[in-house]
């Protein structure tokens, strides 16, 4: 019986969403900055995924005859303080940076989406509890949280991702809560309630699919922030641990020599800028495409 009700609610679910999404895609394709971002993101992800094939050398191969060599035909981006090929390390570093970034945002989404939905739907009892929870999380600025977690769990790639993810939870909760508040008043939700759908179905089958746009925008804001976060944490020694290459680790180990070998700090930094810029461009484009009336923030 309930399935009939769902099939009969046209604005909910996939039907209308798909054509809306097609229109959004068209708008994105007409947005040059957004398309540049998209192409860059695809290229960077490909470079990271194919790092083992693209890298000219083993990123861990130490060569004490070639310490801190300048960029040349043999080593396009030079070599580091252990004679390791810098281009290979940048490629593998990008891999771990993107991995931490995406993992962190994924963690945040998994934790925050149910909380946001519940806070927006159960306004009397769940909302105040979740609100205090987010306030508490916000009172620990990202780096402070990361410092605390590193103190308790020890610094590592996974713990960096957890710290970054936790710091993004409040934002996603807020977005999902707002969307739920907005959508809970729609007629099709009333129809679903009248049809006897239980709360889980309403939240995850009706409200969640209809707030995907807002969530997607938040995710594209979150990924570059997470990439920057990983870089900072690893730079401070609280994230990815050497010898695993990550862009932050490379900058950190470049710091002592960087008056003599500035290229060691230059290239990993430029790749971080490129990655965050790419996601930011794509995010701006998506926001304009998915939410044409909304303001750019």
């Amino acid at each position, binding site marked *: 019986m309930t399935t009939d009700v769902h099939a009969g609610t046209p604005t909910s679910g996939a039907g209308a969403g798909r054509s809306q999404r097609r229109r959004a895609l068209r708008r994105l394709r007409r947005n040059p900055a957004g398309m540049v971002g998209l192409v860059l993101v695809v290229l960077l992800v490909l470079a990271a995924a194919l790092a083992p094939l693209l890298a000219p050398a083993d990123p861990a191969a130490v060569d004490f005859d070639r310490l801190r060599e300048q960029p040349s035909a043999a080593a396009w981006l030079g070599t580091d303080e252990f004679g390791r090929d810098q281009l290979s390390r940048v490629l593998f570093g990008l891999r771990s940076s993107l991995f931490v970034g995406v993992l962190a945002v994924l963690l945040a989404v998994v934790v925050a989406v149910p909380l946001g939905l519940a806070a927006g739907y159960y306004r009397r009892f769940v909302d105040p509890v979740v609100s205090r929870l987010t*306030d508490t999380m916000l009172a*620990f600025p990202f780096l402070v949280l990361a410092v605390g977690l590193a103190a308790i769990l020890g610094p590592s790639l996974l713990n960096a991702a957890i710290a970054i993810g936790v710091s993004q939870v409040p934002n996603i909760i807020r977005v999902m809560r707002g969307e739920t508040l907005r959508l809970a008043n729609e007629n099709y939700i009333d129809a679903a309630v009248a049809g006897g759908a239980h709360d889980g179905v309403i939240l995850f089958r009706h409200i969640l699919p209809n707030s995907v746009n807002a969530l997607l925008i938040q995710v594209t804001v979150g990924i570059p922030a997470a990439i920057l976060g990983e870089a900072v944490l690893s730079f*401070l020694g609280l994230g990815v641990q050497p010898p695993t290459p990550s862009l932050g680790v490379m900058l950190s180990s470049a710091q002592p020599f960087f008056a003599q070998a500035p290229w060691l700090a230059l290239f990993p930094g430029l790749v971080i800028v490129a990655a965050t810029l790419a996601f930011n461009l794509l995010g701006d484009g998506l926001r304009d495409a998915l939410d044409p009336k909304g*303001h750019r923030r």
Partner: protein
Amino acid sequence: MGRYLLNRLLQSLVTLFLVSVVIFAGVRAMPGDPALLLAGDDPSPETVAAINEQYGFDRAWPLQYLTWIGQMLRWDFGESIRTGMPVSETILTRLPATLELAALSLLVAALVGVLAGVAAAVRQGRPTDWLANGVALLGLSVPNFWLGLMGILVFAVALGWLPASGYVPFFESPAGNLASMVMPAIVLGTGLAAIILRQTRSSMIEALSSDYVRTARAKGMTPRRVVAHALRNSLITVLTILGLQLGALISGTVVTEQIFVLPGFGRLMVESVFTRDFPVIQATVMVTAVGYILVNLVVDLLYSVVDPRIRVQGGAR
């Protein structure tokens, strides 16, 4: 106003309580016996027992918690394991550099962000706007610590105009203080300036197309005064951003201090993690969280003074 104020204060108190519980539990979840850490190398069982007694580690957790809160209320954070100094004193010596850094970078960010944001909005869709947007996007994407490294490379190593690191207290030498803070303040202010620029631009565009601006133009107000008119209403956004970005600002001071070797609060925090100096970790994290909650409370109250509609809605965020 009274009810809103009370409500908001109550919320902050609950948050403070939760924060203190999280920190208390977090420190107890740290690996290693704190008494052993305090006792130093190869302690006798008697020493460990004495330390447990002195710090109350052998007492029940609720009691330990209350003792801890009581001590903090008297501005007593115990002693650093590494230096043996009272943590409260160390914090006070480390705060000035951090507060100065935060204030200066806020100033840089607000000045650059608002001016460029207004310029972009007034010349919407023209080269100035494109340039401002491009620079803002770049500012958002550049990691501030890398910007700092590049700044040191150019202005300290290559040109020798500014010191690469170190801190000169203001009262020792105002000029030296300024020279040591110029780069850190700009580096930390860049990301914030980009955010303020984008927000100022969009709210200025909105304000410039509103009815009251059209009226002002119609009655012959000069373009310059029209902009000033619209700007007043857009400035609230700067206040909002301050509240929203405070966490990022605090995180930023930690990194910036690390790069420019400023003897600030953030460096103290990072150092304490590496030396496992848990009284210092506990105190610095707590002070930061309390500072965050207080500043946000003040921002919210200021906000409700500037924009009375907030009070009417009961401060729903």
